[in-house]
């Protein structure tokens, strides 16, 4: 009986580990798949299917240490397969071809995974900024508008734009403390 109780416990622990894997990677994975399919609903379907597959083959996985790499690779291959099958190749842009043409056999490395996770983190952090502050920051750093253009568009002074940017950078620096590399990238975008 003790053995069986232990088995139940492993099952519960498995579920917790699985939920963590979902929480940590679901959003970045959807955006990763979206880069390939260009359709977010389809991307979500793909990622959900992969998670279900992963759960059904969990015994197999325990031998494989790098679950992250495995799941991203599964999502990529699944997405590419669908894109090819449904002939939506026109939607694939140059950059994706540059990244994914020949290498469906290759595993996706940690660098690529971290990239998507960090972008997710940045997005969530920008969303947490006060509304005006986030809007100004997005217009400047993501859409690449100049301070003068932003000032005109939002009908505020250039000085206020500078204040918002300063505040946004300060808040983001706190939120993204451990993600310095990506932060440097974001602050150096013209």
């Amino acid at each position, binding site marked *: *009986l003790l053995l*069986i*109780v232990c*088995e*139940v*416990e492993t099952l519960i622990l498995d579920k917790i580990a699985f*939920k963590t894997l*979902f*929480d940590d990677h*679901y*959003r970045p994975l*959807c*955006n990763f798949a*979206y*880069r390939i399919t260009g359709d*977010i609903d389809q*991307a*979500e379907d793909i*990622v*959900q299917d992969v*998670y*279900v597959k992963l*759960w*059904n083959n969990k015994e197999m996985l325990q031998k494989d240490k790098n679950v992250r790499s495995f799941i991203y690779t599964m999502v990529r291959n699944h997405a590419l397969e669908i894109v090819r099958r449904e002939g939506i190749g026109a939607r694939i*842009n*140059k*950059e994706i071809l*540059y990244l994914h043409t020949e290498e469906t056999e290759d595993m996706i490395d940690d660098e690529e995974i971290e*990239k*998507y996770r960090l*972008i*997710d983190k*940045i*997005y969530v952090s920008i969303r947490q900024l*006060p*509304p*005006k*502050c986030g809007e100004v920051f997005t217009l400047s750093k*993501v*859409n690449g508008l100049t301070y003068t253009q932003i000032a005109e568009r939002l009908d505020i002074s250039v000085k*206020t734009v500078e*204040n918002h940017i300063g*505040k946004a950078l300060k808040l983001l620096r706190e939120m993204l403390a451990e993600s310095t590399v*990506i932060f440097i*990238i974001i602050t150096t*975008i013209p």
Partner: protein
Amino acid sequence: MNFKHSIIKYITGSEAAEEKAALDDWKADSEENLAALKNIVDMQQQVSILKNYQEVDTSRAWANIEQKIQQNDAPKQKPNYILKIAASLLFIIAAIFVFNKINEGNNSVEYLATTNKTIDLQDGSHIWMQKNSKLNQTSYRNVSLDGQAYFDIAKDPKTPFEVSTHHGKITVLGTEFNIITSKDKTQIYVSEGKVKVEYAGKKQILEVSQMITISENEMAVASSPFIKPVHWKNKILSFENNNLRYVLESVAIYYNIQLDWQIKAKEDQCKINTVFKDETLEDVMIELALISGLVYEIKGKTIIVKSYKC
């Protein structure tokens, strides 16, 4: 040849044939060139991912996945031998035993809000918790609260919904109200319907836009001029041509903090137009300071306002 220009074209996919050839040569020239190109493409790609970031509903996704894995788990159990039947029976009994044990020991669910968040209860009620608040669901329609939360309670005339606070008990059938509760005092504000408050043997019925403050053995009912039902309902504090003082009084109530207005001048000429949606007190104050040149200090549970310049 302007490489930066052609790299951009390469990324956007619009380079002419001869430009591509030149770029390929350059790319093949050295490892450094290749790395540099990859770097630029990467950076461009990151900004582009961020620009096109897609939001997804994670809780719905998880529900989908959970449903599918349960469906898939079920038909797998096909015992072929008596031994297997016995084993799975034992397994099921053990599972029920374990789950019962878990349910028995820990009947209440505790929610601790590390950031502002919404909790959906099984009965269809929604509770929006302020950062650092603690909510304990002791049974189906019974909770206790420490901190601040806004309750949107689903109607159920048969089962009243009860909230225990540091000062007394609140009973409702289906309404919307806000509670701020700490050891010193408890404040309840009603934005929809009626709320019954019981404390130290006294009873009080509150109506829309009424606020009660309970401390020690005192109960004081008032209509607050500074805050409106819609503020709590939408987690929005909005101001249109309001005086700075008025704005700060509202902020103080909303964030459950004292206001110490140290400005001597009689006229408050600072007109404020702004909206705060689900923001922290610190962010609200920084933004107000930006608008009105406010000089302030947050000391414990008090905002001290020293001066402003509009």
